[in-house]
């Protein structure tokens, strides 16, 4: 009987590993659709940012209460993995609490900590469900945010309920195990005297007082299997869910933009054009790597700005997969606050949805497949793009340094430079700058007239 369980366990583990590997390959292929961009400079500063913002959860503590609650789930997730390691080894080797005799003095302490965290996680997940569905925190409500469609809300509920069930399974498994140990049944008796009752589960023992030994063993096994298969299923599910942020949050922060928020990225391909048109020596784009055998620049320069996900940078695409749709960006967006259609969260969700659509196309038709859709227009409209004030509130609000504004700007560039689709009043502003050196229609010769008033009496 034991050996059957071991075989089933190894098969389940291998299947999970194989499936997750396939998912990782597919997602990383999707991220690599983006243009190259060096985000490996200043390694020390990047590491520091990651320690502070990802590991330290610094930005989550903007709201201290929510920060603490999120920290409980986060710490629980990280630390309970030590217990998962034991469960994995038990499953493979057919053992029972493998570590208990080996690290006997600290084992009960560790399990006590896991149990406290389990109760913490369980409590916080219940609170989070209440916040979403009973207290109705504004940024999660579909009436107010059109990107909060059915799936994002279901996704959130699935995650929270799954975590609650996993924690219940862990706690009741410990309890049934303790009762069996007390009764000295079968191999459970081996740990009698080695480990005591645990901090939380000792109080749950009355739940199982009326169970027969057989029923109790059955419950212990079911809880154990539910817990570990649940974790495996959850790991697979995460790759389809907004909850992918538990993995990608860390690299996403590591590769975040280190420059001042106000700085918009330069377009060197345009610098060259500008220098040529002003009759200046060309200082960019002339490195040897960009010239062909005859020393000529390649004739085709890429698109100006972004129409679809391929035109964005890989970091924009990683941002999209890292986004957990918490909506703090949107809640801070002045355009959204005042009822405009723009929602920075939707920009990130649209980018991911578009990538998923391309993945579906790949699966059905091979990796060369191209459809005739694009991120711009099919997902994100001009009305949304034009509403952005570039105020950086969304960039500032994101707990894991996602930058929705960068995507908005690249899409604007495409609309303005490739499609000449700027709003008419922007075109007027452009031509004023071009002709009058100011965004208004004043004569450049009048620019210094203010100085005549400097000595006038107030």
């Amino acid at each position, binding site marked *: 009987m034991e050996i059957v369980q071991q075989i089933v366990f190894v098969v389940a583990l291998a299947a999970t590993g194989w499936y997750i590997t396939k998912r990782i390959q597919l997602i990383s292929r999707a991220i690599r659709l983006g243009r190259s961009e060096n985000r490996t400079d200043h390694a020390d500063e990047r590491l520091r940012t990651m320690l502070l913002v990802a590991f330290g959860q610094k930005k989550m503590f903007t709201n201290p209460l929510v920060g603490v609650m999120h920290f409980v789930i986060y710490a629980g997730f990280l630390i309970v993995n030590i217990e998962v390691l034991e469960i994995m080894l038990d499953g493979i080797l057919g053992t029972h609490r493998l570590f208990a005799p080996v690290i006997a003095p600290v084992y009960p302490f560790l399990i006590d900590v896991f149990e406290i965290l389990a109760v913490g996680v369980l409590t916080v997940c219940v609170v989070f469900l209440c916040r979403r569905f009973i207290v109705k925190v504004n940024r999660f409500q579909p009436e107010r945010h059109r990107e909060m469609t059915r799936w994002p809300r279901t996704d959130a509920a699935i995650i929270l309920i799954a975590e609650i069930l996993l924690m219940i399974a862990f706690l009741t498994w410990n309890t049934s195990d303790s009762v069996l140990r007390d009764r000295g049944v079968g191999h459970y008796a081996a740990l009698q005297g080695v480990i005591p009752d645990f901090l939380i589960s000792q109080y749950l023992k009355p739940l199982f007082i009326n169970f027969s030994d057989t029923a109790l063993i059955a419950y212990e096994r079911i809880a154990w299997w539910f817990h570990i298969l649940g974790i495996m299923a959850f790991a697979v599910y995460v790759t389809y869910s907004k909850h992918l942020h538990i993995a990608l949050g860390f690299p996403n922060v590591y590769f975040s933009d280190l*420059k*001042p*928020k*106000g*700085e*918009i990225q*330069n*377009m060197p391909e*345009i*610098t060259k054009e*500008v*220098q040529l048109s*002003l009759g200046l020596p060309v200082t960019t784009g002339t490195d040897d790597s960009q010239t062909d055998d005859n020393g000529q620049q390649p004739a085709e320069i890429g698109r*100006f*700005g972004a129409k679809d996900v391929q035109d964005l940078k890989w970091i924009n695409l990683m941002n999209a997969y890292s986004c957990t749709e918490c909506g703090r960006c949107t809640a*801070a967006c*002045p*355009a959204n*606050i*005042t*009822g*405009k*259609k723009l929602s920075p969260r939707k920009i990130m969700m649209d980018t991911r949805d578009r990538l998923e659509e391309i993945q579906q196309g790949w699966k059905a038709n091979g990796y060369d497949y191209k459809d005739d859709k694009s991120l711009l227009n099919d997902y994100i409209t001009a009305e949304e793009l*034009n*509403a*952005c*004030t*570039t*105020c*950086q*509130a969304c*960039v*500032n609000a994101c707990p894991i340094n996602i930058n929705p504004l960068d995507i908005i700007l690249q899409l*604007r*560039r*495409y*609309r*303005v*430079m490739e499609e000449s689709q*700027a*709003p008419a*009043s*922007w075109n007027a*502003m*452009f031509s004023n*700058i071009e002709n009058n*050196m*100011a*965004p*208004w229609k004043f004569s*450049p010769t*009048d*620019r*210094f007239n*203010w*100085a005549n*008033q*400097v*000595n006038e*009496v107030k």
Partner: protein
Amino acid sequence: MPTETNYKVPTMADMAAAGEEPEILFWVGCAGSFDDRYKRVTIAFVRILNHVGIKFAVLGTEESCTGDPARRAGNEFLFQMQAVSNIQILNGYNVKKIVTACPHCFNTLKNEYPELGGTYEVIHHSQFLQNLINEGRIKVKDGQSFKGRKITFHDSCYLGRANKVYEAPRDVLEALDADLVEMKRVKANGLCCGAGGGQYFKEPEPGKKDVNVERTEEALSTGADTIAVACPFCMTMMSDGVKNKNREDSVRVYDIAELIAQKEGL
């Protein structure tokens, strides 16, 4: 008060002709040059510069839009045309240090020009005034008294979030000896006036209300009689907001440089 004042506004061209170099270049910006309301700020700042005896100069008619609104609206080509031409002029005069009252010019000159060949020490006029106060070059004088007046400061995105300048304008306002009251959304959480990213130059998208009205409501709810700003676009947006709320008789919008000039009796 009789005005025997004789404020001077030297240009870089004049200085160069005389074989001189100023300590700082005052970058006036398009709004500071053409907007009737913001011209008063430019004048106030120039009076302060004269008053403390800083050797400064302006570009005058040689100045041109930094290209900020064009870049943010997506017209990278136009931005770079402006930037590269401006850099030629600035480098031609061997400019090292620039002060400007416009956070958009400040951000662009400071962060975006270096990559195109223009590297300068760029400071915002709030930082400049803060330094003058810290150094004791601006002292409390017999100008207008601010005692008992409630002032609230509106953070501009391109000064605050974009470049993390939060304390300088507040320090300047502290020097007025007024009662500084903060709005609900301040500093990194400050709410935009609604003008950035090229919004100033077009009608807003349809929505429930305009951003400047939302922000003005927040400013008015502090009970302040003065809304202090440090940006020409915030100035217009907040002034329009105050008008929209029919409060222009009781609530005034001033730039921090104007408040210092009033305090100094300039």
